[in-house]
């Protein structure tokens, strides 16, 4: 990964976004909305936060594409694990 890219990484900006999203999540969780939309909105915000951490703090954004593929490899397995078992109910 490029050292120049590291030096330009907006660590505190990402921190601010993570903080704002955490506050937004807490307020959103207590809104009077259907359960589906509550869960959907909260998961979208959580995944967004997780992506920001992976891309900027774990520096995945600056890594070779092959590492991206490696990092993403368990995600289909994780989805299969949950979705297939949930079909039982």
């Amino acid at each position: 990964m490029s050292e120049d890219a590291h030096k330009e990484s907006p660590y505190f900006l990402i921190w601010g976004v993570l903080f704002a999203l955490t506050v937004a999540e807490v307020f959103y969780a207590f809104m009077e909305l259907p359960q589906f939309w509550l869960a959907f909105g909260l998961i979208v915000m959580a995944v967004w936060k997780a992506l920001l951490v992976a891309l900027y703090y774990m520096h995945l954004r600056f890594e070779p594409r092959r590492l991206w593929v490696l990092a993403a490899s368990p995600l289909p397995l994780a989805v299969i694990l949950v979705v297939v078992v949930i079909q039982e109910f």
Partner: protein
Amino acid sequence: MSTAAAGRLPMPGMKVYNLKLGMWIFLLSEVMFFTGLIGSYIILRFAHPEHFAAPGVVLNVPLTAFNTFVLICSSVTMVKAFAAVEQGDQKGLQRWLLATIALGTFFVGVQAVEYSVLSSEGFVPMAELYHAVGRGAVHAEGAAEAAVVGGPLYGATFYAMTGFHGAHVSIGVLCLLYVYWRARKGKYSAASLGGVEIMGLYWHFVDLVWILLFTIVYLI
């Protein structure tokens, strides 16, 4: 970080030095570990909704939201430690590592307090001891007669998920202490920073998992 700067040969075809590749593969196995826990939680919640409660009824959301913020702050201090060693700033490296250790320890401390309060309120994993009545009723008059909220599955899944995560944070703090001790001895530099980088990868992963756990366990 360039592979040359790390002073290690890259894995052929990966363009990533071996230490970092090894940490990534370990973290991928951790993804599956936590997926097993989260998947079990989701399935149990679908199967036995009567055992679970709405956000904030039993669990203390504001306290945990604050603790989540603490862990996010520790990710910033960790990444600043890495940025410091990249620039050859030894004092900065030690200072940011120390801040990360302090924040990680604080996180575990708050979690311990949370466990203590919740278990004293009857939120436990054992079926015969579970008698959580919810945060609104626990301090009110007639709490003893208040209806029990949720069931032992809620306690069991909560303690399993947050406990395993807490164990990861605790191990991370111990590893950070070791990295800090090595930093004090001047073992890291801009040309040799693999230890700080893989420590950072582990720490950020722990933060990332908590972001998901906080949403799934406390907010949904």
